[in-house]
Structure formats: C-alpha cells, structure tokens
C-alpha cells in the first residue's frame, strides 16, 4: 500500500484546520474568483505608479545617455550593478525552495514554492533591466548574443565572465519560467473546471493547455518535475557563482578572491528567503491562507535565514583575515581603510551591512522570536537592506579609490534618475506579484493535496492511534480494510 506512508509525529502538521481535498481547492482558488479587495487595489496602484516613474527614469537615461546617472571616473558601475546583483540574489530562493528542497524531500516546500518561484521570475526580470539599460545604446543590446554578424565576422568573447552572465541569467530565467509554468498547469485546470464566468473559462482553458489529470500525464509530470529540479539545483548554484565571477576574475582589490562564489550563493539564498518572508507574510494575511502557510513554515524559513546569514558572516570574517594574511598592500588597504575604518567615506555602509546581515539575524536562535510574525517581518526587511548594502560595499568601496590616487573620487551618490530606476524595478516586481496573486493560485493546489494525508492536522491526529499499535497489527488492519 504505497498510500500509507509513515510520517513522524514529531513533525508538526503542514496544513491546519481539518481540510479535505475540496476545501483545499476552495481556500486557494477563492481569491482568484473573488473581486480584488481595496487593499489589493491600493497596493497595485502604488506599484504601477512606481513602475511608471521607473519607465520615465529609463526614458531620461535612454534619451540623454548614461550621464543622467552620477557615475564618475572610477565608479563606472554604481547603483545599477548593485541593484542587479541584489535582484538576482533575491531570485535565488524560489528555485532553491522548489528544486533543492524537492530533492531533499522537504514537505514544507509545498506551501511556499509557487509564490517563491513566481517571485524568482519577477526578481530576475527586474535584475535583467540593469545591465540592459546600462548599455546606454540599448538598441544595440543584441550585440551580446553570439550571431554571425557583418563586422568581421566578429563574435562575442566566450572567455568573458560578462558573457557567461548573459547565458547564466537567460538560462536561469527560462528554466525557472518553464518549471513554474509546468507546475501551474494542473492548478490552472482546477480553476478552469470550477469557472462559472465565460471569460474565466476561456482564459484558464487557454492557459491550462487542456490538462485532464490523466494518470499517464501525472507520471510524466512527476518525472519532468524531478529532472527539472535536478538540473535547476546546479543551475541555481551556478548563476550566482557566475555573477560573482564578474568580480572575482578581475584584479580589483576586494574583488579578486576565490571565496566569492560560495559567499555570493549563501548571500543570495539569505536575501531570497528574506524576500519570500516579506511577501508570504503579507500574502497569507491578505488572502487568508494561514492554514497553508503556517507558523511552522515561517519558522523553518527563519532557520534557513539564520544559517545562511551566519555563513555570510563567516565569509566576511574570512575575507578580512585573508586580506591581512595575504599581505597584499592593495588588498589590505581596501579592507582596512575603505571598509573596516568606520570613519572612511563608506565605512558606515560596511558596518551597516555587518549589523544587518550578521549580527541582527542571530536573534533567530530563539524559538520565540522565530515564531513571532512582527519580528520576522521586520527582520526580513532588515536583511534585504543589509544585503543591498553588501553589494554596494563590494562594488563601491573597491573602486572609489583605485590604483591611481589622482582619480580617487571621494563621494559617489546617485542621481534622482538612478533612484527612480531602482524604484521602478520595485514597481515592476510588485505589479507582477499583485497580478500573480490575483490571477494565479498562490499555493500549489495539487501538491498540497498530495501531502494532505500525511501532513494535514486532521490526518495526523488520526495517526496517533495507529502509532501505538504494533506494526503487525497495522499491516493486518490495512489489508482487512481493503477486502
């Protein structure tokens, strides 16, 4: 009987309040069928306003050139690349949750994976904006693609980490999108088959590709998900590794270190989980999904946050140690003077980063704080501020004082259009997320049903009795049940 699978009583239930299959469908699909709330409209309109401001900022940048940004002699990459790395980092949690936790057979991922994957896709979309618009002459953007052109034939440089990034980010985006959408098909079919309105039947019929739920299709679907997860796992690690290569393969003090790939990946997971927390804490409240995104889910994610935050902390300390131990004067100066020294022009940002990323997440060693929603929400924002400053510290403090003291520029501060661009990506991100939460099932309906009999609280309670009895008796009972 493959249906009866033992699940430890020690594990708390993942679905609360006596759900059956139909109730699961009702709860998760209801927000799609209802009219959006006033809160939804307010959030959505603010996001669209931010997006429009971003569009105008980009318009300025395209029309008048990159000079609209306060970049200077040594800081050719300022806020834009900081934002790029920040968004890409955030985009790591979704695939981590859906792929790596699938391979590790973590049941709790089912409650959060759909929203986290959507978040990944939107975050990568935001990230992609920065390198594209930073090109200045954006109509030449296709030059990054390897195509046989009329100039030579001149090809792109396959040895350059910047080109690796083009491949890594675009592959990551495509694969995440496919993974997300193939998982969505059965749930869209659920919405389609419940639909009463004509347009909804039409739209979801179109989107669900004619999914029927045939056993053979499920078998292929499972196999597809498993292989996609297996491939996304090294992919998600490779993407931020390649992003870190953009820095690590250069000879700039503070960047030229071999620790970068694992350090960036840990930081990405750290910030990604923080963003998942921010979004899910809001979503579960607004869409009343507290039974599916339980306090257990939030606690588990806080554990991941304290773990990855500490890994990032170890990386910071290792960097400091190596900059002293390596005895390279430029490297040592970059760390001791440009970062560690709180009285240097950017010393404050280094210590802000330390405080937000390493020190403050340590409060999650306490169970009470891990299970406190207000603390969690506050911390999730703090972590993302910290992780933004990490990228800012890495980028700006390494290049504002380069090898040539005559070109040192003491202060780099962004122009309003740089800030506008950044705010615009927030607009893009939240506009997409609001639309997603209105039109798509925020929780994977089929996957919740799949774990319901093992992890729903009503089924777990039923298991108490069984557990006390001997295995022989249990075996006997199952067989007599079916005959």
């Amino acid at each position, binding site marked *: 009987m493959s249906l009866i699978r033992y699940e430890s009583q020690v594990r708390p239930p993942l679905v609360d309040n006596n759900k059956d299959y139909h109730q699961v469908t009702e709860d998760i699909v209801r927000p799609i069928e209802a009219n959006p709330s006033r809160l939804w409209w307010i959030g959505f309109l603010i996001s669209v306003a931010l997006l429009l401001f971003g569009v105008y900022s980009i318009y300025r940048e395209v029309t008048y050139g990159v000079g609209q940004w306060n970049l200077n002699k040594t800081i050719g990459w300022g806020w834009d690349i900081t934002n790029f790395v920040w968004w890409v980092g955030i985009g790591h949690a979704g695939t981590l949750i859906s792929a790596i936790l699938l391979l590790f057979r973590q049941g709790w991922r089912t409650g959060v994976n759909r929203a986290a994957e959507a978040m990944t896709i939107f975050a990568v979309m935001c990230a992609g904006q920065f390198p594209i618009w930073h090109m200045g002459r954006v109509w030449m953007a296709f030059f990054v693609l390897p195509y046989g052109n009329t100039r030579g034939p001149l090809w792109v440089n396959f040895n350059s980490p910047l080109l690796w990034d083009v491949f890594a980010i675009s592959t990551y985006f495509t694969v995440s999108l496919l993974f997300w959408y193939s998982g969505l098909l059965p749930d869209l079919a659920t919405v389609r088959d419940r639909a009463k309105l004509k347009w909804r039947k039409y739209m979801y019929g179109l989107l669900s590709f004619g999914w029927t739920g045939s056993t053979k299709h499920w078998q292929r679907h499972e196999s597809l998900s498993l292989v996609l997860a297996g491939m996304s796992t090294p992919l998600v690690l490779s993407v931020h590794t390649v992003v870190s290569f953009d820095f690590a393969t250069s000879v700039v003090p503070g960047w030229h270190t071999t620790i970068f790939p694992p350090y960036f990946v840990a930081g990405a997971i750290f910030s990604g989980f923080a963003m998942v927390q921010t979004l899910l804490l809001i979503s579960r409240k607004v869409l009343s999904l507290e039974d599916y995104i339980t306090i257990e889910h939030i606690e588990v994610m806080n554990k991941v946050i304290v773990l990855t935050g500490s890994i990032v902390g170890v990386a910071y300390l290792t960097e400091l140690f190596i900059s002293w131990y390596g005895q390279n004067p430029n490297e040592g100066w970059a760390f001791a003077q440009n970062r560690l020294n709180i009285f240097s022009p950017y010393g404050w940002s280094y210590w802000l980063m330390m405080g937000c990323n390493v020190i403050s997440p340590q409060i999650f060693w306490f169970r009470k704080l891990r299970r406190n929603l207000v603390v969690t929400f506050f911390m999730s924002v703090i972590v993302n501020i910290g992780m933004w400053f990490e990228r800012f510290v890495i980028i700006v403090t390494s290049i504002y004082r380069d090898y040539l003291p005559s070109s040192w520029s003491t202060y780099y501060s962004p122009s309003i259009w740089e800030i506008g661009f950044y705010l615009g990506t927030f607009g893009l991100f939240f506009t997409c997320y609001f639309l997603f939460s209105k039109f798509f099932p925020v929780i994977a309906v089929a996957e919740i049903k799949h774990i319901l009999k093992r992890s729903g609280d009503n089924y777990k309670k039923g298991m108490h009795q069984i557990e006390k009895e001997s295995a022989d008796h249990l075996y006997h009972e199952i067989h007599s049940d*079916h005959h």
Partner: protein
Amino acid sequence: MAVKKFVVGCFDEEGPLFDAVKKVRKSGYKLHDVYTPFPIHGLDKAMGLRDTSIHTAGFLYAIFGTTSMLSFMTWVFTKDFPLNVGGKPHFALPAWIPITFEFTVLCACVGMVITFCYLCQLAPFVKKHHFHLRATDDRFVMVIECTPKTNESELSSFMTSIGATEVNVQNAETGWWLGRYDKEQKLFEGQSETVSA
C-alpha cells in the same frame, strides 16, 4: 481520433482506487484511464503503465547542448575568428565550461518541456473531453472503455461494487481538438445518463 463509449466511475477517496484498478484488470475490462486531481504514486504501476522515458529524452537533449555549444565555441575561436588575447590559447576549455553548462541545462529543460507537452498533447487552444469536472478538484475518475461485447449495465453495477460513488455512461472523443473552453464545441453527438448515484 474516434468517438467511443465509456463507463465512468467516480471515487471519493484515492484509497480504494488501487484495489479497484486491480479488479478491473482481473475481470478483463478495458481500462481507459484514471483521472486524478494530484499524482498518486504507484497508481501507474497498478494500472500496468510502463515507466516514462521522458528523462532519457532529457539526457539526449543535454548531450546535444553540451556538444553543440562546445564545438561551436571551438569553431569560433580556433577556426572562424582566432583572436590573440595576450597570447592565451585559442582553445580555452576552462573558460568555456560555464557557457557549456548553462546551454546544456537550457537545451535539456526546454527540450523536455516541449517533449512533455507533445506526449501529453498539451498546448494553448487544445481542448479535450473531460469526463468529470471535479477530476481536477476532489474526485478520482475511473474510465472504462466499452467494447462491442461489453454489457453496459453489468459494467455499471460492477463499477459501483468496486467502490465508485457515481457512475454514468458517456460517448466521448478520445483525442484532442482545437477549441475554447467557454463554448460547447463537441465534435460529436453525445449523450450522458446517470445510472446510479
């Protein structure tokens, strides 16, 4: 594509499905399919379906990705446009590993998803016959195909005896057609009657 007659039985729980499938196969009825709202592990084995080889297809796409990208970069940097960058080797294998890896994953994933959609006949505007609308919600729908020899009422009562809570007979198109879900677009004249509830 053909219109066939089916006896459709709905189950409320997935538990009885296994025994039911076993009994259907034993009694020689032609099991068309079982439609479920979520994957039920082991049901495919119970129904006697063979394992899917979609992962093998994925492996082949991956090999295609690896070899094509590596040979393309080799051709570009050693034959077509050998650029001398500080005397570094033209055939710079270590530097090509990231792109080769990414392209391998890209080919495997895109290829597999397309193969999946092709095998399961999934695409926008594709429409199929749905035996029960709650098969994507909370019902487990077993469909048995009627052959000329089949006695429908016997089969229906057999369906009830193995645990189906709702049984009916449907004429249905087995394939897919282009259509919209907001319109009744059947390619055939069909009748559906409920035998027992």
